[in-house]
């Protein structure tokens, strides 16, 4: 496996080494597919979205600013492609989920800290993980994308905001709202169980 970091690979690609791009594809194909899958919720569609993401990345790679995070950039492309896909495929559901999510006000933004996920060792109950997966499917694609980028991929709110060209407070707000929705989902689940 090529040990060079993303920026070195991009620089090599720009100098004519097309194999470097193949290395980038190999490095990100899994994370991008999983991310797309969790937004579009279908294997076939996730494949199509992943393919589109890498084609767009290839087309615009020469314009990428190497002082920024490539990971944030490619996940922003994936987020846009996935959300566009959901919007086109199921506009009614998409609109209702976004409406439920409320407007893009910043009322949640200021008390959001940069939480890090707990260590994997504490996770023992796969049933809960599956429930979380199900709950994620119920929240708006925009909020889901932010949660997956932040908690799943370890991107900071600032990196996400830069990559998707949105104010950081909007990103934090979406995150917070998504988490509140998950909280409501789990609360309902526990009430149902008791």
């Amino acid at each position, binding site marked *: 496996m090529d040990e060079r970091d993303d920026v070195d690979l991009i620089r090599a690609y720009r100098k004519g080494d*097309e*194999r470097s*791009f*193949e290395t980038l*594809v*190999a490095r990100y*194909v*899994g994370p991008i*597919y*999983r991310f797309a*899958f*969790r937004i579009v919720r279908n*294997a076939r569609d*996730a*494949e199509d979205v*992943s*393919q589109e993401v*890498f*084609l767009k990345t*290839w*087309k615009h790679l020469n314009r990428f600013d190497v002082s920024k995070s490539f990971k944030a950039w490619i996940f922003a492309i994936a987020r846009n492609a996935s959300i566009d896909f959901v919007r086109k495929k199921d506009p009614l559901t998409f609109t209702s989920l976004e409406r439920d999510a409320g407007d893009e006000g910043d009322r949640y933004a200021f008390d959001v800290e940069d*939480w*890090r*996920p*707990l260590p*994997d060792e*504490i*996770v023992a*109950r*796969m049933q*809960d*993980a*599956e*429930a*979380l*997966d199900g709950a*994620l499917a119920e929240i708006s694609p925009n909020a889901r994308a932010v*949660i*997956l980028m932040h*908690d*799943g991929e370890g991107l900071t709110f600032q990196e996400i905001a830069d990559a998707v060209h949105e104010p950081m407070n909007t990103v934090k707000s979406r995150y917070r709202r998504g*988490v*509140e929705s*998950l*909280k409501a989902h*789990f609360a309902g689940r526990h009430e149902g169980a008791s």
Partner: protein
Amino acid sequence: MRIYRETMNGIPVRALPDVGVPPELQTKILTAITAARIRRLRNEFVATGFAFGIVIAAATASISRLVVEIRSSSIVGYLRLLISDSDIVFGNFREYLYGILESLPVGSIVFALTSVLLLLGAVAFLQALMHARRLSIRRGMPRQAAA
């Protein structure tokens, strides 16, 4: 951390049920990129070919015009004078040189030179495209696909 304990039952997003990545996906992506690359090269090839045709036509016309203008100008007479009466030429070299410079069809020369330079540039670009296309076609299926 609090948020996971309170809202997600302590389940980090990283621990979501694994989604198996289709093994052929990487190959599909690289094949699609190779196809897009070849398509882009083909378009550039056609555009350059078209430009090449225009430049050849312009170069031919400008050179023909240059030849006609040189033949009809007094420059030929000056050159004949250099052969027949070189002593007179060297005796009045400055006047002779000015005469030649004045008789030069400067506009046509500039036009002809520009079109020849453009022609050379188009040839070089076409060669580079053909080289890139050969590489893309030779590679065909990406490395991962062959493995």
